């Protein structure tokens, strides 16, 4: 019988530790155990046989550490060690005459993925792909992805296995003492993603002994609808005389594992410190147990890389602000690839209480696929909210789903056959909840009944792909009441029916209701409240609207989902005085606002100044003198670094107000000049570079920031295409100054006229001269002075 048929219907047993056994046989700490597949195959073969004798029916091949990064200097290829590893298990099974399955064992790459690490998702995928293909070819029966502590890496491994093999996939994770992955993800988030990717079983391994692991299982069972796997250590590692030991003996191990089995799991086995004796005791203790039936938990859930958002009695807020429709400033940001503007929108909505962020970056004149990829990856680096991928471009949607670290919400599918044919396969493959618009080939039905019928059609079609009702979010479409008064009623009637009768969650783009009316917020708020009471599960709204958010919090207090009104009281008990700052600010001058580093005051003061003075005068007589004063203070060490930065940001707000003003007047006054800056290859420290950037911008330069760990070629390319005459390079480590020198050499060769300024903790004037830089800046203000001098002379 094959593995999948037996999974969940009878208890299955993994073997125990490999590493522990190899250390006993003389494996040195730091030595790669997988090389023994070639050099000491008898040792490996014997260990497998001993576990088979002990009664396990799934044997992990000795392939855990095989990946292109760990094997780089080993002289072995991933393929050959994988093949040898699988073949050794198969030989052991054949020679022992046992019935057992061979698991291709895949561990972590030991590299951190983007955005924090340097490994891209696709590079991780490629590395896993090699091992998956080789493993299946050599005859593995299943793929075990284990000891995982990062959801993103898990996703890369799962996709590699799914797309390149037909093997069943089992995933086990390591938790810390708080029940979380090392990335901070909780179990709920990880399970949401894994179920969405349709793995065959999931569970826990390593980290703890069975006693501690047992405590995490109730929580896992509560959220998981898949067969569970439990592979604990033989207790916590203890170092005795330089050797790592584990103290839970076979009998004790088996006793606790029996309890775990009775509470409901499908596969049991062992990790570090467990031996054939542990597995034998485990099998003896548990073999008579029938696994409990696995129940469908029916949770409507999306997740980010840290947490899950559950659709339930308490409605959710989906922030709608990341969308260019009707927003000229946002369109401009997209055209200029001003991602920082988009990120600010994201963080602002999070601060205001959004639970999920809609992401729409479609604009006819830009490459939406590339922009979507970049924004999704970028947003995951700065916010932990789940994202709603909003696009009508199927390729953009698929790329975003692939790169998304979690289970996304998708926007959207509709009742058109073509739409369903395109989108549902993506949901089936990557997982996700999906917004379903109740329109089809015949347009938007003008009756509630018509919209309900489309909803039913979509539900039925989704089922063909194995997509359950719990993963749908039906949108009964908000139409403005300015063109038909019955519109609100139709939407609400259909909404109520979908939620109460069809028992599917619902969503609406709320603000459409008031299109064409004055003071739209008034209508929006009322409609939002009614919709919530009719069963709206999630409103797509602007969280920056105080009125909408108040309506939301009040509703939650009223419908009982805000327990004891705690949230409401916390938010509104202290009479908020949002205008105190700005009323005080009326008296503060732009100069003072910048010197004191007050961002909002500087913006207001600049706007006020612009009413009475020309923009250039505001810059020359207020902003620049204020910056100079703070900058000089910093150089004389009377002003402290954070204060300099606050002033810089206040000045930036002032400049933004001026730019906005100029644009309204159709004036596109040129910047002082363009400067390319970068932290050099190999270096991941970019704070110094970020400081330089904001100060240069303050003084009117346009700065092209290439980020950190930048290849010399990319710096040269950017300097060339933008015809810049100044490049700034930063390096913090002694080891990366060599790359700085390399970058300078390439720049000097390709662009002899271009000046190069350098800075960073380890640099000195002598060092800078040695590597051929034109200027060494000991701090951020130095770079401003140099740039000013250089561009003045050249003008």
């Amino acid at each position, binding site marked *: 019988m094959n593995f999948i048929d037996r999974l969940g219907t009878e208890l299955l047993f993994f073997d125990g530790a490999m590493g522990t056994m190899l250390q006993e046989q003389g494996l040195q700490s730091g030595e790669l155990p997988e090389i023994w597949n070639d050099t000491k195959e008898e040792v490996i073969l014997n260990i497998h046989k001993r576990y088979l004798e002990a009664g396990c029916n799934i044997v992990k091949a000795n392939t855990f550490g095989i990946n292109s990064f760990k094997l780089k200097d080993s002289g072995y290829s991933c393929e050959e060690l994988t093949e040898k590893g699988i073949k050794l298990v198969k030989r052991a099974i054949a020679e022992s005459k046992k019935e057992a399955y061979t698991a291709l064992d895949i561990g*972590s790459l030991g590299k951190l993925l983007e955005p924090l*690490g340097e490994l891209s998702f696709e590079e991780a995928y490629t590395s896993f792909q090699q091992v998956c293909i080789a493993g299946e070819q050599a005859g593995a029966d299943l793929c075990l992805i284990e000891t995982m502590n990062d959801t993103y890496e898990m996703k890369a491994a799962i996709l590699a296995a799914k797309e390149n093999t037909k093997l069943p996939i089992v995933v086990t994770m390591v938790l810390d003492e708080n029940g979380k992955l090392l990335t901070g993800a909780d179990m709920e988030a990880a399970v949401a993603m894994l179920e969405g990717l349709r793995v065959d079983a999931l569970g826990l391994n390593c980290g703890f002994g069975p006693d501690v692991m047992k405590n995490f299982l109730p929580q896992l069972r509560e959220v998981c609808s898949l067969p569970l796997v439990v592979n604990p250590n033989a207790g916590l590692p203890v170092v005795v005389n330089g050797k790592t030991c584990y103290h839970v003996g076979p009998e004790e191990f088996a006793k606790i594992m029996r309890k775990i089995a009775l509470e409901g799991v499908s596969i049991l086995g062992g990790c570090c410190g467990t031996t054939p004796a542990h597995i034998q005791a485990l099998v003896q203790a548990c073999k008579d147990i029938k696994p409990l039936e696995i129940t469908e938990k029916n949770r409507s859930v999306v997740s980010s890389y840290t947490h899950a958002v559950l659709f339930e009695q308490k409605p959710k807020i989906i922030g709608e602000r990341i969308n260019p429709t009707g927003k000229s400033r946002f369109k401009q940001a997209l055209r200029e690839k001003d991602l920082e503007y988009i990120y600010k929108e994201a963080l602002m909505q999070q601060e205001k209480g959004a639970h999920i962020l809609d992401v729409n970056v479609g604009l006819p004149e830009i490459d939406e696929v590339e922009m979507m990829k970049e924004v999704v990856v970028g947003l995951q680096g700065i916010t932990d909210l789940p994202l709603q991928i909003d696009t009508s471009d199927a390729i953009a949607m698929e790329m975003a789903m692939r790169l998304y670290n979690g289970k996304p919400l998708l926007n959207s599918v509709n009742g058109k056959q073509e739409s369903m044919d395109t989108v549902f396969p993506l949901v089936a493959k990557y997982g996700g909840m999906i917004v379903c618009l109740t329109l089809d080939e015949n347009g938007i039905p003008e009756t509630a009944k018509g919209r309900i019928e489309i909803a039913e059609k979509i539900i039925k079609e989704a089922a063909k792909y194995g997509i359950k009702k719990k993963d749908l979010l039906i949108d009964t479409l908000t139409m403005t009441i300015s063109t038909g008064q019955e519109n609100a009623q139709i939407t609400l009637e259909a909404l109520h029916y979908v939620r109460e009768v069809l028992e599917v969650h619902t969503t609406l783009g709320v603000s459409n209701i008031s299109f064409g009316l004055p003071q739209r917020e008034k209508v929006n708020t009322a409609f939002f409240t009614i919709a919530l009471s009719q069963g709206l599960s999630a409103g797509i709204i602007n969280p920056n609207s105080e009125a909408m958010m108040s309506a939301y919090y009040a509703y939650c207090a009223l419908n009982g989902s805000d327990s004891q009104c705690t949230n409401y009281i916390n938010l509104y008990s202290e009479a908020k005085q949002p205008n105190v700052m700005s009323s005080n600010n009326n008296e503060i001058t732009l100069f003072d606002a910048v010197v004191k580093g007050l961002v909002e005051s500087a913006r207001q003061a600049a706007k006020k100044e612009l009413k009475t003075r020309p923009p250039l005068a505001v810059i020359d007589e207020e902003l620049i003198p204020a910056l100079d004063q703070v900058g000089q203070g910093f150089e004389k060490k009377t002003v402290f670094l*954070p204060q300099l930065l606050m002033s810089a940001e206040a000045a930036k707000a002032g400049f933004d107000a001026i730019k906005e003003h100029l644009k309204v007047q159709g004036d596109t006054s040129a910047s002082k000049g363009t400067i390319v800056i970068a932290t050099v290859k190999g270096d991941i420290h970019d704070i110094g570079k*970020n400081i330089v950037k904001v100060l240069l911008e303050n003084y009117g330069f346009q700065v092209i920031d290439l980020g950190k760990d930048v290849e010399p070629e990319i710096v040269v390319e950017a300097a060339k295409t933008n015809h810049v005459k100044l490049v700034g390079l930063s390096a913090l480590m002694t080891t990366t100054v060599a790359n700085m020198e390399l970058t300078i050499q390439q720049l000097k060769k390709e662009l002899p006229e271009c000046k190069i300024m350098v800075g960073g903790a380890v640099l000195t004037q002598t060092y800078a001269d040695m590597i051929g830089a034109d200027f060494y800046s000991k701090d951020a203000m130095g770079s401003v002075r140099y740039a000013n001098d250089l561009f003045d002379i050249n003008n």
Partner: protein
Amino acid sequence: MINRKETLRYLGYLGQKIDEQTQKFIEEVEVELENSSSPKSIYREYNCDINGDTILIDGLVINSANLAKNLKECKHVVLLAATIGRAADMMIKKYAVTNLAKSVIVQAAGAAYIESYVDEIEETIRKYAKEQELYLRPRFSPGYGDFSLEYQKDIFAMLECSRRIGITLTEGNLMIPTKSVTAVIGLTTKERASCQKETCSQCEKQDCEFRQREIIMPCGVL
């Protein structure tokens, strides 16, 4: 616990007046960082052999005159790795977008946090060592003096840093999360050879702006 004085030192603080807003930002960052970080560490004791400038630690051969001097006559060493986790790096990225001053404060507070966390671990090791009448030499990390960063790879493999506590290495042997520390701590039988803690005043880089010096703190800063 984050040591405020150390945070200020990493910010290049020289006793300037700290305004209300800066003070508030520092306090907010400390709270957020402590709430969202989960410090983790791993350490193991090994036998050690020193021959001239060559140090042998359980199969690992290190060539470094500075480390050899540090470990003089030690028969045992502890290899240690510790991290406060990814929260600091995520906060630095987030605040680089919304509030650069806070981003810089997280950088400094994160550095202060990992140092004090490693000090705590060292205290635990000190107690354990004392039971065996051994004393701790000042901890010494790859990158100090002529102790090459290349050895990070070996220390990572021996302690299983990535698997156990989630620290990874870049191509250039830098650690991510960035607020992480690896170190070698010699265990000596001579109490006098140990010292409580090596301060950065022993470093050769005299002109370093982060060099520890006595700063008179204005009231209310700490």
